[in-house]
Every structure is written in C-alpha cells, then in structure tokens.
C-alpha cells in the first residue's frame, strides 16, 4: 500500500473518546479489509469472467474503505501506526471484524448470501454515518454509500436469479443462506460495543438501530426469490472483542506473509 494522506480535522479529544473512536474505526475497517481479502480469493475462480471482474471491483471498493478507516484509526490512536502496520502487523486477537466476513467463500451461493447480508448492512451503516459529527467518517460514508449501493444491487440480482432459476440453483442458494445466517445477528449485536457507543454519541452508529431497515430490504429480496429466511440454532458473537472463528487464523497468513517476510517492501 502506498502512503497517502487523508485530510482530517486535528483530533485532540480526551483519551476515552480517542480510545473508543480508534476501536470503532478498527471494527469497521477490519470488516472491509477481511471481506476484501476473501472476495479477492474468487479472482480467476468465478463462474464467469464478468463475475471475476465484478467481485474484484467490489473487493477493491472495500479495500479503499479499509485503507481510509485504518489510516484514520492510526491517526486517532496517535501511536504512529499507519494502515500497513494495522493491516499486516496485528495478530488474530487484535482484529475487530465480525465473524461473518471471515467465513470461507464456499460455493457461489454462500458468497452471494454473505454479500447480500453484508452489503445491505453496510448500506444502512454508511447511510447512518452520513450525519456523523466526525467529518472524516461522514466524508467516507458519502463516498462509500454510493459504492455499496452497487454491491447490494449486485448480490440482490444474483440471489433473485439463483432463487428463481433451476431447482439446483434454488437449493444451493438456500443452502448458502443457511450457512451464512448464524453470523447475521452479530452484525447488529451492540453488547460488545456498548462502552464505545456511549463514549461516541453523534459520532458512531448503534448497529442495533440498523436492523429494521436491513430486515425489510433483505426480507423483500428473499420473498421475491422464493427463498426462506433461515432459523439458525446458534449465533456467532465476539468478533468486536477479538474472538474469531478458526477461519481468520488461516486467512491472516495469506494477507500478511509478504509484508512480514520482507518488511518495508514496496512495488
């Protein structure tokens, strides 16, 4: 990653706010970074060349969002860490992403279920952040909400097509939803972020407030796609506190190996 400065107002607020904001930014930035890495795994393996390009484009948008968020997190933290330090030199327990973004790609149905779920969540999240009192976050949200609109629409079209296609495409799309749904509630679970939300009124968005709009959108898509909303028997929890599934431990070496083996390497 190249060095790129991103303008933000000087942030000299008290340490409670700084710590909370750093943690909040890491959560959003890690979500985008880890999903970008997962989607990148589809390159050269997607069912059509157009899908190869589409998934790579979506990954690139997410990587751009991650770079902005991690750069800003490093600035707010004030300990001299840049986006590369945060992306490449943290260990598994230091990542704050939800577990949904780290699950394996599975087949195209699983990936599209995860895309629909996450893009619809990010759409509501960035819409909420448009009015954040933090100018950098609001600026990023204004940019990112346009990108995410395309991601959400892309997943929507595939879920509709697969759900109402052949018996086999319907079966596999439903199986993708079933595999994904245990990770959905964690997106809206505010228990692990209650302290930082309390420290950031007007700046952060309480994820629980995003659920009704998310649910209405996703529910409409599933209904029209003749798919059933799964009723999972367990739920993931803890990503925002650094508790992850086994998947993240396998993903990070792919992401970090080059930088750790050749510190300071550039193209």
């Amino acid at each position, binding site marked *: 990653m*190249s060095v*790129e*400065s*991103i*303008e933000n107002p000087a942030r000299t607020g008290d340490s409670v706010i700084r710590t909370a904001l750093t943690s909040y930014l890491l959560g959003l930035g890690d979500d985008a970074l880890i999903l970008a890495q997962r989607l990148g795994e589809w390159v050269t393996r997607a069912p059509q060349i*157009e*899908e190869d*390009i*589409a998934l790579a*484009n*979506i990954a*690139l*948008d*997410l*990587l*751009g*969002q991650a*770079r*902005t968020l991690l750069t800003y997190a490093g600035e707010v933290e004030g300990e001299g860490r840049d986006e590369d330090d945060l992306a490449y030199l943290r260990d598994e327990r230091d990542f704050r992403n939800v577990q949904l973004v780290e699950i394996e790609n599975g087949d195209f149905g699983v990936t599209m279920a995860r895309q629909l779920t996450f893009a619809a969540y990010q*759409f509501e999240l960035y*819409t909420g952040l448009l009015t954040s009192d933090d*100018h*950098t976050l*609001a*600026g*990023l949200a*204004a*940019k*990112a*909400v*346009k*990108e995410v*609109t*395309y991601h*959400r*629409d*892309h997943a*929507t*079209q595939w879920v*509709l097509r697969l759900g109402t296609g052949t018996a086999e495409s319907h079966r596999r799309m439903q199986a993708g939803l079933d595999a994904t749904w245990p990770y959905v509630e964690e997106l809206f679970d505010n228990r692990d972020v209650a302290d930082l939300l309390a420290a950031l009124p007007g700046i952060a968005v309480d994820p629980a407030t995003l659920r009704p*709009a998310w649910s*209405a*959108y996703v529910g*409409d*898509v599933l209904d*029209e796609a003749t798919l059933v909303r799964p009723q999972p028997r367990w739920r993931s929890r803890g990503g925002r506190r650094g508790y992850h599934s086994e998947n993240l431990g396998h993903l990070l070496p792919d992401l970090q190996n080059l930088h750790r083996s050749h510190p300071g390497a550039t193209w």
Partner: protein
Amino acid sequence: MIATFAQSAVQTTDPTELTRLRAVAASVLDPEIPVLTLDDLGILRAVRIDDDGTVHVRLTPTYTGCPATAVIAADVQAALLAAGAERVEVRTVLSPAWTTDWISADGRRKLTEYGIDPPGQCSPPGSLPAGRAGLSGRRPVVLTLSARCPRCGSTRTREVSRFGSTPCKAHWTCQSCLEPFDSFKAI
C-alpha cells in the same frame, strides 16, 4: 473548510502565479482515461501557494479504492515541479464526495470520442439506474433508458455487467454494431 482554504489562497499568493500553477495541475491527464484532464473529471479541489512557496494541492478520489488516485497525485507533483514549483504537497480530501455530475461538458464529449459512453444524470444514493434496486419501494428509483453506443450511436444496447475494467465503468454491448463498450457509471 474549503471556504477557509480559498480565502487564505487569496491572501498569500501572487494571483498570476497561482493561476499559472493551477492550470498546470488542472491539465494533468487521468492515467486510466488519458484524454480527460483533472479539470474535465472535476477532481481538482483546490490549489494554494504557501508563504514559503510550497504548492498545496487538494484532490478528491473518484472511488475510495481507485488505484489511479496515487498515480494522479504523483503526476501532479511531477508536473508542478517541472513547472518551477519548489515544493509540492498533494493531499486527498473525501468530503464533499465526488460525483460524475462534476465531469465537464467538454469531458463528456471527449469520453464519447474515446469510446466510452459518458455518465447520465446522477441519481440519489440508494437508487440504481435499473433492475431490482428499488425492490422494497422505500427509495426513489431513477430509470435510465439505454446507454448510447459511442461507436455507432445506437441505443439498442445491453448491460453485460455493472462492473467493468475500472471501478468507474460498467460493461455494455451494442446490439446494432455488436461491439462491446464501457459506460461511465453515474454515481
């Protein structure tokens, strides 16, 4: 923030020199679509000269992850140094977010000549030009007629994929002349 910025530029700079250097930065070409200048794209936000002679440039990215952003920053720096600037500092500003509505009329003409269908009027976030975006009916949906083939001018065209060779373009094909073409997404 932008207002303050413009104000200080007026206070501290020889206006002729500022105009000259702004024109140099504005005429740098986009590396991905090398017929468009930064002015055509509308991504050059501000140019200012410090008391110590440092030229400050503010750019806005088209997409947050657009790889061209870093190349453009380097190209602007090189162009200004070649034009006699002593020090150049290029920074990226995200807000207000760039929109394709800022592409100039001249830029749109150049895009068509280059073989890219220029973007239509931008629609509000949450709506998309076509398809199922407005499924839940909670947000306005702007309907786009068809993209116009930049080669033969036909509107008998079809969207192949909403994602194209770069983040800012979609992939279309013309059903009259059968040629594929890029269409600039309206965002």
